[in-house]
Every structure is written in C-alpha cells, then in structure tokens.
C-alpha cells in the first residue's frame, strides 16, 4: 500500500519536474563561484557553509548543473560513503582489475592465440612422434648386422667417421643452417617442446624401459666413460635447439643418417667389438654439431657402446637400445652355470658383461638376457 502511494507520488513529482523544469528561474541570488562549486562537489566544506550552498543549489539550475558536472568528473569520494561502504581488499581490487573489461578486451584475443598455438604445438608434436617410432622400429627390424652397422652410423664425431661421404656432410650441414634460419617467434614453443621431450626421455626409465629403443646406437667408448657422459650433458643442452629444425631440415637429417649408415657399414665390422671414443664432438664442424644435436634429441641418460651394442643406464641397469619391454627376458646370474654356457656360445656377451658393471639387459640374436 505504502509502495503504491509512493508510486503515485513518484509520478506526480515527475510531472511537476516536467512542468517546472522550463519555468525554474535563478532567483537564488548570486551564483556560487568556482571555489565554492569545487569545494561543494568534493564535499570539502564545513557543515554550515555546505547547508547554505545546498539551499542555493536546490533553487539554482545553473549552479546545480555545474556541481553535478564536477561531481561526476571529479570522482568525489564522500565522507559518508567511505564510512558506510567497506573498502575492497587488495586481492579483490587486483582481481577486479584483472577481470576488467578493458583488460579482457586485449587479453581475450591474446589468450585465444596462445590456446591455438598450444593446440598447434600438441598436434605437431603428435605428428612427430610416430615418425620417431617408425624410425626406431625400422632400426629394430634390421638384422643384427645392420644394427651393428648402425652403431657406428651417427658417429660423425668418431675418428673412424673422419671421412664421411660428401652427401652426408652436405645433408648434415643443412640441418643446423636451417635451424639457425628458423623464425624467431618459433623460439618459445620450440624450447618448451624440446624441454618436454627431454623430460619425457628422462622420465622414461621409470615408466617404460622400452623407450630406450628411441636411443640411436653409437660406437663404443669404453675407456672414456666420463667424457661420454659430459657429451650427453652437452647433448641435453643442445637438444633445446633441435626441434626448431624445419621439416625440410629434418628430411635432410634423415637423408644424412641414411648416408651415414651406408658409409659406416664399410667402417664398422659387425661383431668386431671395437671400442671407439665418441667424445670428439666439434672436430667435424657443422655436421658434427648436427649429430650431437640429433643424438641429444634421442638420448637422455648416460650411454655406452660395447661390442657394437649401445647401452643406456636407467637407474642401476644398463639396457640394450634394441631391448623391447614386450620381449621375453632370460635372467642369468654372473658365474652361474647358465652364464658360463651362454658366454661360451656367445663370447661377445662376456665382453659386454665385463665392460658394464651391474645389471645388464642385452638383446642377442633376438633373445633378451638379463645378466645380474
């Protein structure tokens, strides 16, 4: 009922306002000066003076207009308001400023771009992974002879690889050149992708020992284990640059690898149990750097090559790069009858067992042996 009455009064007052609006005169005497207007709008006047000016403003349209204008533009904070309205906390203010429409006006498109870039990166990365798997599978499917040849294949950095075929060098030199010419905006996703790749590889031993297959074989370096480890560390650092290689340069790298394999077949004899140092990284110039980079991309932990086999240490176990978790493994204890029988048939396994301390998983003639 009271609300209805107020509605009636509301309508009557609106009508009165319409009628009187045109007829209101400035019969309130002298107008307020600028100082009085601004002080009033800022609520900076003593009560008595303010009341005096309020009376004038209630009658004077001109001064009222000016005060309204100044109140709106001056951002006046009234004493009453500060007393009654609690001040928002700092984090609320921060959140409010973060989610302000003006911020989102620019942030939303930027966020959209980031999301698109992230999705693109994930998709591209998924596209790359099958290539790796295919490559590794091909390695596995080759005969032990070809695997033995492969062990020397990426060893542009090895002394035996001092004279690679010209095609291989050309192909290898392409890769870093293209890496260098990769556009700068790619740098950020590239680094993150490679970091993730490193993380994946580092986490692999815990989750999936079979992923050791990703490691491409390298010539053995028995006497120089620590430099090899150092090289691996270098590879880890340089791996961050590798994924920047454009698909074309990736192709060039694969071509170079094929060339390497062809060349190395002439150099590395299967079963020769040749131990070759692999720590000379920079002797081959750009091609060597490319090799280190691609090795770094494939390996994460310390590796050694013995008897033409490449082993990677995962925890306390040396795992053959050709080992696959799906393979049945025969466990053989050192010094046992079974062990003696095995090394009698396969002397190379003895070499491996002697070279590598601790537990070893070695794949030999399509069978996996776990030597403890």
């Amino acid at each position, binding site marked *: 009922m*009271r609300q209805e*009455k*107020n*509605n*009636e*009064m*509301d*309508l*009557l*007052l*609106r*009508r*009165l*306002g*319409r*009628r*009187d*609006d045109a007829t*209101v005169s400035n019969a309130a005497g002298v107008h307020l*000066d*600028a*100082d009085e*207007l*601004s*002080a009033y*709008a*800022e*609520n*900076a*006047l*003593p009560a*008595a*003076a303010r*009341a*005096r000016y*309020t*009376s004038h*403003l*209630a009658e004077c*349209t*001109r001064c*009222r*207009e*000016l*005060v*309204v*204008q*100044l*109140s*709106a*533009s*001056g951002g*006046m904070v*009234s*004493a*009453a*308001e500060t007393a*009654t*309205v609690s001040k928002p906390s700092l984090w609320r203010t921060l959140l409010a400023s973060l989610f302000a429409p003006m911020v989102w006006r620019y942030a939303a498109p930027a966020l959209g771009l980031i999301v698109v870039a992230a999705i693109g990166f994930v998709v591209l990365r998924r596209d790359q992974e099958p290539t790796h798997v295919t490559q590794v599978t091909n390695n596995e499917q080759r005969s032990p002879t070809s695997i033995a040849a492969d062990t020397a294949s990426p060893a542009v950095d090895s002394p035996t690889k001092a004279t690679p075929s010209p095609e291989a060098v050309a192909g290898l030199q392409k890769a870093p050149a293209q890496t260098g010419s990769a556009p700068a905006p790619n740098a950020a996703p590239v680094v993150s992708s490679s970091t993730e790749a490193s993380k994946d590889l580092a986490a692999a031993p815990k989750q999936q020992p079979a992923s050791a297959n990703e490691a491409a074989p390298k010539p053995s370096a028995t006497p120089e284990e620590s430099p090899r480890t150092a090289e691996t560390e270098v590879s880890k650092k340089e791996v961050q640059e590798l994924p920047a290689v454009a698909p074309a340069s990736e192709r060039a790298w694969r071509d170079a690898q094929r060339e390497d394999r062809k060349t190395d077949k002439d150099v590395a004899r299967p079963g020769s149990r040749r131990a070759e140092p692999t720590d000379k990284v920079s002797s081959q110039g750009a091609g060597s750097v490319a090799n280190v980079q691609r090795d770094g991309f494939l390996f994460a932990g310390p590796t050694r090559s013995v008897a033409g086999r490449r082993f990677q240490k995962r925890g306390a176990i040396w795992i053959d790069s050709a080992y696959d978790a799906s393979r049945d493994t025969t466990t053989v204890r050192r010094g046992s009858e079974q062990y003696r029988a095995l090394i009698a048939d396969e002397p190379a396994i003895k070499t491996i067992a002697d070279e590598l301390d601790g537990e070893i998983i070695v794949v030999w003639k399509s069978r996996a042996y776990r030597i403890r």
Partner: protein
Amino acid sequence: MQTEVEKSLNEGAARLVARASDSRSLTRELLLPRITAAVEKYLLKDDPNTPHAEISKFIDEMQADDLCLIIACERGDEKAWTDLVERFTATVRSAARSASSNEDAAEDLAQSIWAELYGLRTRKDGMPASKLAYYSGRGSLAGWLRAVVAQLAVDTFRKQSRLVQTEEDTDLERLARVAEGQPLVARIPTPEESISNRFAKTGMQQALHQAVQELPAEDRLLVKLYYFDNLRLREAGAVLGVHEATASRRLTRIQTELRTRVTKILVDERGWTQAETERSFAEIAQHLDTDLESILSKEGV
C-alpha cells in the same frame, strides 16, 4: 593584543607551511591573508564565534601544496608557473573537452582559461587580475580548475545563446508583423497536455509545488536532482555526498513526507476531505501513468 581567531589563523598558517612538501619559499605571513579569507568565507560567515579547534581543523584540512603553488604563481615564481602548466594542462584540456562540442572549441576554451589564470587584465593596483586569487585551498586545485572551465563554458554558451535568441526573436517579430490581423490557429491540446492541465486545475500541482518548497534544503536538492534534472540516484547521491542506497532510502522517505504534506495542504488550506484527497491522488496518478506509458511507447523506449 591578538584575538583568539588571529591566534588560530597564525598557528594554522605556520602548520600549513610546515606540512607542505614544497612550500616554494613562502612564509607564514605570505599565506596568512589567503587562509584568513578562506576561514571567513567558509566558517566565520556562518558562525563568527567558531571555536579555535574548528578553525585549526579547517586550516589543517586545506590543500597545502596546491595553495603554495597558486600563491607562488601569483607572486610571479616562474618555476611555480611551469609546474602549474605541466601538472594541470591535461586537467584543463579534459575539462574543456567535456564542456565543448568540438575539439576546436575545447582548445579555445582551454587557452582562455590559461589567459584568465595568468591574468592578462590588470587590477587597479597594477597587479594582474588573475583568477588564481579566488582559489581558497579548501578543495583540490584540479577540482577548482575544472570548476573554472565549466563556469567559463556555461557563460560563453549563454552569451552565444542570447545572441542566437535575439536573432530568432527578430525573425519571430517579422513573422508576427506579416501575420498581423490574422486570427491565431487554435491548437488542440495533446492528451498529455490535457492531463497536465487537469493536474494543474485540481490544485494538486500547486500543493505539491508548495510541499516541495517546504522541504529541508538537502531533501529539496535531492528532489530537484532526481525529478527535475533527471539524474540517476548514484549521480544525485554523489552530489549530496551520500551513497546511492542512502539516496534511495532518503527519496522514499521524502515521497512519504510529501504525500502527507500535500494532503495536509489540500485539507487544511483548500477544504478537501481526506477521501477526496486520496481519490484525487489515485485518479491523477493513474492518468499520468497511462500518459507516461503512451509517451514512452511513442518514444520507442
């Protein structure tokens, strides 16, 4: 013998100089006349016996840095002028833009303000007649500059309006001379006008007008801001220095009080019965409501 007020003023001036972050080499004596003028204008005019504590509080709330800057400018301090222009060019320009219809007019207005501040005219004593003399230091200097711009804009606009009005009047007079002797075309009042006329005839309008005039100044100002100037409650509250919610509550109370007051006027002064008053309220409000709806629908709101 120093009076209580003089003592308060002297002490207050000394404190003001001390708390200014840059007093611009001004002394208490140089500031005293301006502070005294402000105290007289805003305190002693309303209460010549204002207590010492209140005067001290008033002076302590003054804008010390702004006041020192302005007085230094008045005294011809070049650095102070440079600081004033550097600090407030944007404020003046912004105020001029919001008070002008276009960029050129805003630029002209801003230039006029700086000329007024600098004081191109001279007083009788030979000193430049600068507007700076009117800044008391009670409100912020930025607010004062905005007020100066707004005032000048209004005055300029009114001057121009008068000019246009005069030309229009001349045209109307000419038209009137041409149409002399001819009967005026009888204009049929619109439904809105007829309702308004009925509203006026019933005496309700006069009673309401009277009741509004009898409201306390603060309430009357709120009614004017809300119903006459069509401000939002938030804007009206800002002028009064209260929150929107407070303004809303106050307006509801005023409506109730006005209704009571109008009823009393109609019954006591015009001989209406209580029932007649109630019926009249409802009837007129209903007509006005219908009228408003039709207006709003015409306007496509």
